[in-house]
């Protein structure tokens, strides 16, 4: 395997030729200069959204052609066959350059579904989709959550019934990110209601252009439509698009979720990382004339201390990876802190701004906080609610016993479902 130093030099050579370096961050904030957009979820007009997706696809293709599109992937699918460390090294160098954000492709499709296809799909399906995905042509989404299967993902009710060489899928999926840009989706379906819930699920790769697939935007409380509802009405999926065994979909799902990268390494703060940190918050305190307000200073210091400590936690996870270890429970702790930090920062900004955040008075960097403020409840829900993250910490890290219950033992058809009691 190529040494990390040599690999990093290759990355630099590629990026120097293909992109511009970002101006060196000074850590200083000049209040009132530049954009004051403070957004976590996008709320772009459709044409801007499309242009961003096109740019992401183009950049992914350029990366792929240069040999950096799938650094940890097998060479037969255009990957480099290198380690997670090489992948991290690439990300670290690329962060110095001004390149399009490829999250629409990478967070779900390339990061989670690609590795699942590699491990659980048949050879012809791997050939058909993997190079196309990592070349930026095919975007994938995750048809997982349902109205009745949120935290309890194994409770999915979307049905798949076998019909010769095909399966007929029907049901409703919800909170599906990037479905409106996707060519394929990975769907979890109930194939055997006689079995307990984890043992009657099968996973399929669904061509999103098939008849019966309907994607409807879901408007979230912050105003934008980052997510979708996906309705599946008698969608006929060939059996060769099945992932893993019949009724073995939970094992396939675990592969997908194991590849969730979370916010380790500080990639989580993303679009708001420039405002949710000490220099911006201090500049805001001064701009609003509250630099001497003891109560606000105290609240600000509490937020800033946790923000800085969370960065320390993320850097430690990266050091652990670099030393060849696997990051421990930092990921769950980081996620909890991330949700908490952004929530507290947004409410602190509101306290600093006062009425000028409740109505748009035209003050720079003020009313614009609302986009983040209105997104913060989601940060404590998506990717595992706070309660689920705490169960994970309590049970898997601290070894505390699960809540007693027989939902994992009784046949799915006999389980209590919402509305059954009334």
């Amino acid at each position, binding site marked *: 395997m190529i040494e990390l130093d040599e690999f990093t030099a290759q990355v630099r050579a590629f990026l120097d030729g293909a992109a511009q370096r970002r101006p060196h961050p000074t850590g200083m904030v000049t209040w009132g200069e530049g954009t004051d957009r403070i957004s976590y979820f996008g709320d772009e007009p459709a044409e801007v959204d499309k242009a961003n997706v096109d740019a992401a696809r183009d950049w992914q293709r350029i990366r792929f052609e240069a040999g950096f599109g799938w650094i940890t992937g097998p060479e037969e699918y255009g990957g480099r066959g290198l380690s997670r460390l090489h992948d991290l090294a690439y990300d670290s160098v690329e962060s110095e350059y001004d390149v399009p954000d490829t999250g629409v492709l990478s967070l779900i499709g390339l990061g989670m579904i690609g590795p699942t296809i590699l491990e659980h799909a048949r050879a012809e399906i791997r050939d058909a989709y993997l190079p196309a995905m990592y070349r930026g042509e095919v975007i994938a989404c995750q048809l997982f959550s349902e109205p009745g299967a949120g935290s309890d993902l194994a409770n999915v009710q979307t049905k798949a019934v076998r019909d010769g060489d095909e399966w007929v899928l029907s049901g409703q999926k919800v909170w599906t990110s990037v479905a409106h840009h996707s060519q394929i989706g990975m769907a979890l379906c109930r194939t055997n209601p006689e079995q307990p819930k984890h043992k009657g699920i099968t996973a399929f790769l669904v061509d999103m252009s098939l008849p019966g697939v309907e994607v409807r935007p879901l408007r979230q409380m912050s105003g934008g439509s980052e997510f979708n509802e996906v309705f599946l009405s008698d969608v006929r999926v060939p059996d060769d698009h099945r992932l893993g065994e019949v009724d073995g979909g939970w094992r396939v799902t675990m592969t997908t979720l194991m590849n969730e990268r979370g916010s380790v390494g500080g990639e989580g703060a993303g679009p708001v990382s420039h405002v949710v940190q*000490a*220099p911006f918050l*201090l500049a805001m*305190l*001064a701009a609003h004339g509250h*630099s001497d307000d003891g109560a606000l*200073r*105290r609240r*600000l*210091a*509490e937020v*800033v*201390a*946790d923000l*800085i*400590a*969370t*960065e*320390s*936690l993320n*850097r*430690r996870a990266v050091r652990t990876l670099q*030393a060849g270890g696997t990051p421990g*429970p*930092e990921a769950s*702790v980081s996620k*909890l*802190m991330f949700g908490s930090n952004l929530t507290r920062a947004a409410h602190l900004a509101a306290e600093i701004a006062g009425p000028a955040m409740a109505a748009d008075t035209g003050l720079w960097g003020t009313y614009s906080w609302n986009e983040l403020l209105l997104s913060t409840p989601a940060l404590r829900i998506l990717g595992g609610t706070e*309660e689920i*993250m*705490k*169960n994970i*910490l*309590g*049970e898997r*890290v*601290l*070894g*505390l*016993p*699960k*809540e*007693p219950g027989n939902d994992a033992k009784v046949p799915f058809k006999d389980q209590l479902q919402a509305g059954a009691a009334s």
Partner: protein
Amino acid sequence: MTELTSQSERDDLRESVRAFLAAKNDEAALRRAIESDAGYDEQAWTQMADQLGLQSLVVPEQYGGDGLGLVELGVVLEEMGRVLLPGPFFSTVVLAGSALAAAGGSAAEELLPELATGARRASLAVLEADARWKTDGFATSARPDGSGWRLAGEKSVVADGMAADVVVVAAQTDSGPALFAVTGDDGVSRQPLRTLDLTRRAARLTLTEAPAQLVAGPDQARAVLDTVLARATTALAAEQVGAARACLDLSVGYAKDRVQFGRVIGSFQAVKHKCADMFTRVQLADAAAGDAARAVDGLDDHLSAATASAVAHAVCSEAAMFVAMENIQVHGGIGFTWEHPAHLYFRRAKASQLMFGGPSVYFERVLASLGA
């Protein structure tokens, strides 16, 4: 700068300190020490120096020490914090040791080698009647007397002030603040104080024309005290992480064992989530303390030593207090008894949180370190 020790060397250090403390400071021994006149096991102090060399760890090599950093000392202090080891280790090695090493000069040459061997115990006396950590404007006065100095005034809440053979005293000269070493009993009256923390003693020192030796003059004293504060809050953070982790372990152990309503209580989400919250704060504190040690040792330039130590002091103080409180709640009634160790951790957590001024001061320090 590269690390002075490898992870496996630090693991070995942790293991030997943990084994030593398990033998010398189990709960029965801890309670005996608390009840004793000295307040700590004087024999264990000597063994700690002779067998493990812990007192010499961070003393610079030129003064007979090992020249290691807070990354290494942090391992030791975490273990000491875990078992609430009483005694003048923190006051000697961290408080007085940092002051003397930062000042350098003849006082350091004379005194640090004896601190490094454990032959003398020491402390630092900054606080006065107003109980504020400061670097100037001391009420205690110093006047030259021949080749030495004479000090007059009262120093308050001196950590392990009864045990200290050497006390580094902050006092005001005609030309500004300075630091002095008081090594004898002449003109020094010591009064033990009742303490919230039963595992760390404190004393009031009344100085009446007490002979003293100059450690750092007005040109140097403020900078030395700032260095001491950064090092001491970073070292304290490691101790707090150790104590906090001990509380977490006690809670998790109890939650797996205690049965109510026919179930172990750790299976209730209300208790499980409390433990998860404790774990989260301990992880965060551990990361902050680690980064502060790395910054102070010059191993990492993501943060200035001033910011990293201020953040670690705030985050670790809050975490240790939170975990010590929640530990009692997880235990319920048994956790509120004198016989249960939970209150010892609660007491240590609050006293440590207040040692350099408390929350209103340490949160301001975070902002000050960022130029606000």
